[in-house]
């Protein structure tokens, strides 16, 4: 394993003592094979134990370690040092308030996620004896891609519309609403539409597409939002031009 002197410029902010965030530079010897998260862990263990950031799985599954790396929203466990030259700038995810160093306050996203009911809403209660809710492979395929979201919020950091309009429900929450709306076992679409077909819902999206570019799980939130727009538009015409077909 070849070693390399890696220079990281990390945003530091302690709300108890600092008025403004500042950048702190660390230089550490790292193997080329490491990811940015490895370098941060190495710094925390050997240089500066006060450095704060979130991480858990180190395998692009938990969605905790999202950061801006050289200005781009990335999972730091999936960003290899060998792909970067010179000083690597590491900042907390854009568009979220900073709690401390690279840790952001994610309450806004969590509240929005709850609002879109990202779980199965059963239509009518069935007795246990009736067995499981069965689904064909084709029915599974319609929504499976949108189940891959790991709530890492990279799409929120990438979305310029969320940056401009913080009330926007945003890419991940709307994609997850879409995931349950498409599920053949679900009956909660009308309740979710009250949130995602509202002005602060899907209509704030101007189809920039940055969410899909940064998504580490290839969920394609931009595609999901376009589908939500089409379905919500059909709803609108049905409700306004064909009131007798109101569902």
């Amino acid at each position, binding site marked *: 394993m070849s070693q390399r002197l890696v220079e990281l410029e990390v945003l530091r902010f302690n709300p108890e003592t600092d008025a403004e965030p500042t950048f702190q530079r660390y230089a550490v010897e790292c193997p080329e094979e490491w990811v940015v998260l490895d370098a941060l862990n190495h710094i925390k263990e050997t240089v500066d134990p006060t450095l704060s950031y979130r991480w858990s799985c180190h395998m692009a599954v938990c969605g905790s370690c999202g950061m801006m790396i050289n200005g781009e929203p990335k999972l730091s466990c999936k960003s290899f040092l060998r792909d970067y030259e010179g000083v690597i700038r590491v900042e907390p995810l854009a568009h979220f308030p900073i709690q401390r160093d690279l840790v952001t306050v994610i309450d806004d996203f969590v509240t929005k996620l709850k609002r879109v009911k990202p779980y199965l809403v059963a239509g009518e209660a069935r007795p246990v004896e009736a067995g499981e809710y069965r689904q064909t492979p084709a029915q599974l395929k319609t929504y499976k891609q949108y189940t891959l979201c790991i709530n890492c919020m990279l799409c929120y950091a990438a979305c*310029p519309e969320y940056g*401009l309009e913080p009330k926007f429900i945003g890419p991940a929450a709307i994609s997850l609403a879409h995931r349950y709306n498409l599920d053949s076992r679900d009956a909660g679409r009308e309740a979710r*539409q*009250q*949130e995602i*077909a*509202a*002005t*602060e*819902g899907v*209509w704030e999206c*101007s189809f*920039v597409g940055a969410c899909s570019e940064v998504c580490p799980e290839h969920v394609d939130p931009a595609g999901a939002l376009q589908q939500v*727009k*089409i379905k*919500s*538009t059909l*709803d*609108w*015409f049905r*409700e*306004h031009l064909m009131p007798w077909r109101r569902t």
Partner: protein
Amino acid sequence: MAKSDKALVWGLFAAGGTVTAFVTPVLVVLTLLPALGVLPDVLTYDSLRAFADATLGRLAIVAIVVLSLWHAAHRLRITLHDFGVRADYAVAVVVYVAAAVGSLAAGWYALAL
């Protein structure tokens, strides 16, 4: 929260986008052909006039013009928003009134000519 009526203008925007994506390149080619001296019979004044005189042809022209106008209006509104113009309501009124006036004019021409 109440559902938004933005679906109406987005529907016209999406329909207009689909139409212009298919029709605009064709119109560019059909406009360039005579400019380059190629004038097939189908592009002569008489045959285009005959196309516009047929009810279906006239409806197609009005539909293309109207949908393109609403597409352009909504596109302009979004673009201005993305460029940082925060007067969304005023922008929306201006662009949609322009599209509505254009649509009425297209309808009037189709009936009058």
